[in-house]
C-alpha cells in the first residue's frame, strides 16, 4: 500500500463520473492508475487531465466483455510502471431499462455481459495476479438494482444481482488468502455528467445534495482500500441523506 502501488479502474466514461472520480482520487493518493474505458477519446481526455495534474496514469481502451482485451489490460498493468498492482475496481455497467415482454434477447444478454460477465473476467485476471502475492483489493460497483428488481430493471437488476453474488463468492473464497473483495451499493443517482448533463431536469429536481456525490463515493472506495485486514468490509451502501430508501 505504498505510493508505489498501481491500480486498474475498469468502466471509465466522462471525467465527471464515478470511474473518473476514482481515477482522480487514486492518482492524487500517489497510485499509478490504468484507466480502462470503452471509448478511447474519453480515456485519453481523462489521462491527459490526470497527467497535467502531475499524476501517473496510463490509458488502456478496453471492451470489458472481450476476454483477450481484459487479459491484455492486466498484462500491461502488471508490466508497465513502477510498483505492484494492488487495487482493481470494476465499475462498468449501464442502467439500461426495459420490461421483459418487449425486450430483445440480445439486449438482455448485452446488459448482462457488461454488468456481470465483464466483472468475472476482470476479477479473474486481477486474482490471478494478486493471489501469488497474497494481497490486493478488488472492488465492485453495485447499485440499488443489485438488491431489488423493479418493473423496468429487468436486465439491469439481473446483471447487478449476478455481479453482487460473484463479488460475494470471491470475497469468501479469497479473503483468507489475503485478497480484500468489496461491493459498494450506490443507492441512487450519481452526481456526474450522465445525470447532470444527460437529464438536467431530473438533477435540478433533486436539489442540493440530492444525488450521490462523487467525492463521497471516492472517499468510500479509498477507505475500503485502506482498511486493515483485521477488520475488512465486504459490502457498503451509499446514498444521499435526502434519499427515501
Amino acid at each position: 500500500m505504498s505510493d508505489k502501488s498501481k491500480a486498474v479502474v475498469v468502466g471509465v466514461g466522462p471525467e465527471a463520473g464515478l470511474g473518473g472520480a476514482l481515477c482522480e482520487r487514486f492518482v492524487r493518493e500517489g497510485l499509478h492508475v490504468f484507466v480502462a474505458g470503452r471509448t478511447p477519446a474519453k480515456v485519453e481526455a481523462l489521462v491527459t487531465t490526470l497527467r497535467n495534474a502531475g499524476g501517473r496514469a496510463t490509458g488502456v481502451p478496453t471492451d470489458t466483455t472481450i476476454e483477450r482485451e481484459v487479459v491484455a489490460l492486466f498484462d500491461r498493468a502488471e508490466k508497465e510502471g513502477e510498483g505492484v498492482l494492488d487495487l482493481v475496481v470494476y465499475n462498468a455497467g449501464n442502467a439500461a431499462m426495459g420490461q421483459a415482454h418487449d425486450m430483445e434477447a440480445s439486449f438482455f444478454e448485452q446488459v448482462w455481459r457488461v454488468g456481470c460477465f465483464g466483472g468475472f473476467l476482470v476479477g479473474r485476471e486481477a486474482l490471478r495476479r494478486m493471489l501469488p502475492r497474497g494481497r490486493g483489493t478488488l472492488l465492485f460497483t453495485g447499485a440499488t438494482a443489485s438488491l431489488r428488481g423493479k418493473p423496468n430493471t429487468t436486465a439491469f437488476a439481473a446483471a447487478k444481482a449476478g455481479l453482487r453474488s460473484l463479488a460475494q463468492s470471491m470475497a469468501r473464497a479469497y479473503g483468507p488468502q489475503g485478497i480484500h473483495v468489496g461491493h459498494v451499493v450506490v443507492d441512487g443517482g450519481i452526481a456526474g455528467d450522465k445525470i447532470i448533463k444527460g437529464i438536467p431536469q431530473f438533477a435540478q429536481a433533486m436539489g442540493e445534495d440530492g444525488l450521490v456525490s462523487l467525492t463521497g463515493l471516492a472517499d468510500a472506495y479509498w477507505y475500503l482500500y485502506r482498511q486493515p485486514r483485521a477488520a475488512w468490509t465486504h459490502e457498503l451502501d451509499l446514498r444521499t441523506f435526502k434519499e427515501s430508501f
Partner: protein
Amino acid sequence: MSAKVCVVAGAGPGTGRALSRRFAAGGYRVAMLARDAGRLAALEREIEGSRGYAVDVADAAAVKQVVDRIRTDLGTPGVLVHNAVSGHFGEFLDVPPEALEQTFRTNVLSLMLLGQAIVPHMLAAGGGAIVVTGNTSAWRGVANFAGFAPSKAAQRILAQSMARSLGPKGIHVAYVVIDAVIDVPWTRQAFASKPDEFFASPAGIADTVFHVAHQDRAAWTFEVDLRPFGEKW
C-alpha cells in the same frame, strides 16, 4: 467547551475503549457510558478528554439525566455510538424469559432511549451521527442464540427506521455488523486455539465507525459489515 462531543454508550475494555480512543484522537471530548464506575475511571485515566458516566442505559429517567449532565459538562453531542450490549447464550428450551427481556432492554430499548434523549439536541444543532455496533446475530439466528439474536435483529431494524426518519433531517444513522469474534482478552481465552486472523481488531472497528460518522452527507452508508480477512462466512 467548543470541542466536538461524542457519546460512547457501552464503554468496556474492548470495542468501547477503542471507540473512545479513536474519537478522542479525532478531536472529540468523549462521554463514556457504562454501569461499572471502576472501568470508567480506568478509561478516564487512559484517555485524555474523556469522562465517564455510570448509568444503566435501559433506565429511561437515568438516560435523560445523564444526557443533561453531558450537555452541561461537555456540550451537545454531535455523535452517539451505541455499543452497549447484553448477551445470553444457551439452548432454546433453557432460555429464561427474563434473559430475553434483558437483552431487549440493553440492546434495543436503550437505543430508543438514548436516541430520544439526544436527537432533539442534535436537530437543534443542525445535525449529527448515530452509529450502532451490531454483529452477526442481527442477520441470523443460530442455535444457542435464541435469547440474544432476536434483540440484535430488532436493534438493526430500529436503527433502519431511525435512519429513514432522521436522515432527511440531517442526522446520519448507521449500523455496523461485526461478523466475527472481537479481539479482547476474554475471547482470546475462550478461543485459545484460534490464530490471530480469526479475531477482528477493536481499533479497526473503531476506525470504520469514525469513518462512517464523518461521511459526506451526499454519500451516507447505512449498513457496513466488518470481519478479519481469515473469517469463514
